[in-house]
């Protein structure tokens, strides 16, 4: 069972929900796909870390073999190539590693070289296998690392996977949720929060994923995100109160479900609810 946790904006509580959900499972794999700023590992403090470098392929031009035909420049839909002063210039950051220019070059002047973009770290924290993607500073797209994170073989006996997504609803999020069985949308009780909830809601519907909402930082008074859920008949899985105690756990990088029985019970309830939703979903739409 793959559960993706996402939200339209940062700071709503994706990592809070992901980390605690993985903690209350008997055995789980937590995958941090927020590769620009992964912070799940701060809570899990995993041991026995194994690291693997990730690179992508970018074109390399042997200028002396180039005859200036510009086939590569006009082919590249991302405009990663320019032909200036009888030389091909490659803009690595704009390149999407499609390899088309190398295939099409009539002079065979182009080949591919590896560009190091980040790494993946894997470790364990009690019952949880923690896998973290880290994108190098200055690299434009985290998608290659996310795709690598999600295709790694899992340890035996871990069939429960929590995917902590990047914020927003862009390519990186789509890559993170595409194979998920269920999506949990985390939302804040603000107008901005509701607006961003609508964006991820549109996204998970577009992907045809079953989903439910966790309302975080709930206080007395109007909750625009809750209103959005009620108006659109969206399943509210859980409400987390705006609680200074929980804030302290977080600031101290403690996992609430490991240190407090109230939160352990709360997230166990969420896990059971989501598991039920997923089994119901497989039964009705296999």
């Amino acid at each position, binding site marked *: 069972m793959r559960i993706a946790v996402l939200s339209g904006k940062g700071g709503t509580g994706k990592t809070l929900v992901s980390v605690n959900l993985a903690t209350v499972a008997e055995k789980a794999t937590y995958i941090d796909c927020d590769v620009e700023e992964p912070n799940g590992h701060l809570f899990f403090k995993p041991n026995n870390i194994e690291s693997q470098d990730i690179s992508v392929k970018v074109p390399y031009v042997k200028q002396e073999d180039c005859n200036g035909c510009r086939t590569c420049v006009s082919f590249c839909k991302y*405009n990663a*190539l320019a032909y*200036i*002063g009888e030389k091909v210039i490659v803009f690595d950051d704009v390149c999407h590693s499609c390899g088309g220019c190398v295939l099409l070059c009539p002079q065979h002047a182009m080949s591919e070289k590896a560009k190091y973009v980040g790494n993946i770290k894997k470790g364990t924290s009690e019952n949880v296998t923690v896998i973290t993607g880290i994108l190098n500073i200055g690299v434009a797209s985290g998608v290659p690392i996310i795709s690598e994170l999600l295709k790694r073989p899992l340890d035996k006996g871990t069939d429960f996977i929590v995917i902590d997504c990047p914020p927003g609803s862009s390519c990186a999020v789509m890559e993170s949720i595409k194979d998920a069985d269920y999506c949990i949308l985390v939302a804040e009780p603000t107008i901005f929060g509701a607006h961003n909830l609508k964006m991820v809601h549109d996204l998970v519907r577009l992907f045809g994923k079953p989903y439910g909402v966790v309302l975080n930082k709930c206080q007395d008074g109007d909750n625009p995100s809750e209103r959005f859920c009620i108006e659109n008949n969206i399943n509210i899985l859980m409400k987390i109160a705006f609680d200074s105690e929980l804030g302290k756990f977080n600031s101290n990088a403690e996992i609430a479900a490991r240190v407090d029985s109230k939160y352990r019970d709360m997230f166990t309830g969420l896990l059971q609810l989501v598991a039920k939703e997923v089994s119901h979903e497989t039964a009705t739409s296999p």
Partner: protein
Amino acid sequence: MKIAMPVNEKSMETTICHSFGRTPYFLVFDTKSMESVFAHNSAATSQGGAGVKAAQAIVDLGVEALITPRCGENAAEVIKTANIKMYKTINESIKDNIQAFNDSKLSTLDEIHAGFHNQAGK
């Protein structure tokens, strides 16, 4: 001398466009013959790398000086490699900028931003 600037419409009365890569048109002006040509910027609608593509077009048009309010780093690299001079616009008026260029009153564009990468105007 052939100079170019990003402009919003195909008219000498129009204003300078704030975006280099995604400007709808480039005005190419010959300071000797006083001839003006408005070139459509096909990079304006590209998904990404608009600056690179627009800069390539500027190079291919045979422009010797570019006058623009700002320029991203990828586009600037292309422009610099092609030895095209870059100047900063003084205001939104095409005529004022041409006049200032002719009077050698424009300063070179030194601040190059990191690029908006699809975020411009959003």
